[in-house]
């Protein structure tokens, strides 16, 4: 049986851990609020973009730009996996990676080529074990404290450049949608060819375009990809903090339970020792 001193030490160390997890939870809560505001602030732009794009795309007849209609093939798939740079956030990274891995394996089973672009170190670490050869690049955002559009734009440009060089045919983005602190939904979203949500029946006939409809579409589509990535990164940032917050909340509660249990054992042991000593004294006195 553990001695009293061992028990005391154990309780002290659990208490120290609890303090750390509690602090991490509070930091995550503060960061979450900021990330959430940023995600909400970015929403109008993405929504407007979508409606403008839907409006334009509905007017496209025949063969549109390759970014919209694809290049006619679906042999090589690029999976863009956006994860966090840090761990200790519950199943956040794992669930995104799991979704991406399933997709990659399914595609490989169909005989397609898979390429993977990682945004964030954690996803890279997990995917490296299985898909070392397929990973084309890792984009590190560790030094970025608050994600701005200027972080997302180069990623979008890079993907488009790869597409234009014919390195892949279809691009899919994996990230986690933020619903609430306890619910984040890992999501796969197709980037190229662009998915236009619910085309609206807007009479685009009366529209005037400067310079031309095709030129506008040609500038808007690359922008749209950067915007989608930007939005995904913001959603991811909020999800990460949400996941970390609930993970740390759980850890703090577990530590509390453990302290309670250990304290009970400690007290029992202490009382047992006192009783034993008393018995020894009394029986010693009786023997005289």
């Amino acid at each position, binding site marked *: 049986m553990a001695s009293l001193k061992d028990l005391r030490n154990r309780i002290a160390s659990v208490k120290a851990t609890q303090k750390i997890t509690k602090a991490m939870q509070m930091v995550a809560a503060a960061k979450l609020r900021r990330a959430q505001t940023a995600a909400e602030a970015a929403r109008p732009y993405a929504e407007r973009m979508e409606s403008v794009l839907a409006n334009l795309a509905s007017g496209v007849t025949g063969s549109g730009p390759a970014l919209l209609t694809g290049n006619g093939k679906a042999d090589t798939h690029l999976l863009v996996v956006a994860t966090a740079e840090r761990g200790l956030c519950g199943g956040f990274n794992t669930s995104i990676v799991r979704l991406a891995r399933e997709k990659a394996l399914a595609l490989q089973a169909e005989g397609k080529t898979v390429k993977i672009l990682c945004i964030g170190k954690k996803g890279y670490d997990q995917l490296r074990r299985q898909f070392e050869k397929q990973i084309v690049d890792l984009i590190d955002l560790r030094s970025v404290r608050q994600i701005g559009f200027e972080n997302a734009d180069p990623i979008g440009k890079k993907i488009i450049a790869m597409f234009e060089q014919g390195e892949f045919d279809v691009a899919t983005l994996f990230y986690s949608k933020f619903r609430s602190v306890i619910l984040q939904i890992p999501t796969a979203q197709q980037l190229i060819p662009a998915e236009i949500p619910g085309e609206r029946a807007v009479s685009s006939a009366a529209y005037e*375009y400067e*310079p031309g409809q095709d030129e506008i579409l040609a500038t*808007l589509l690359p922008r749209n990809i950067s915007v989608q990535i930007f939005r995904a990164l913001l959603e991811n940032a909020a999800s990460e903090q949400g996941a970390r917050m609930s993970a740390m909340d759980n850890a703090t509660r577990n530590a509390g339970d453990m302290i309670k249990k250990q304290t009970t054992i400690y007290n029992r042991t202490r009382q047992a020792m006192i009783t034993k000593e008393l018995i020894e004294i009394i029986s010693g006195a009786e023997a005289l």
Partner: protein
Amino acid sequence: MATFHFELVSPEKLLFSGEVEAVVVPGIEGQFTVMKDHAPVMTVLKAGIIEVQETTTKTNKLFVRGGFADVAAGGLTLLAEQAMPLEQFDAAQLAQEIKNAEEDLADARTEEAIKAAAEKLDQLRELKSAIAA
């Protein structure tokens, strides 16, 4: 004067949303003013100044860099890549940036780099003249 709905959004946030009387938009093929019941137009934006006339006496000026303008029945929506109120620009800082851009242009070797640098310089000069005005 009649008003219409105007929204200015950048990727980071919604900068302006409300009723205005007129907006001067720097389109790629020339500036134009949007007022109530303007015909539907969609255009690419040039870097420049937008003038937002909220009431006859109150006019806001903002600098936008790249993006789109969408005039529809519901009003005008500007999707700007970057937007900033003119008051936030510091003349001294701007002068420094112009100087840097000039040096970039002188250093540029490839055709692409020269084009990019010249474009940036143009934007900055336009901005400077707008502030001075």
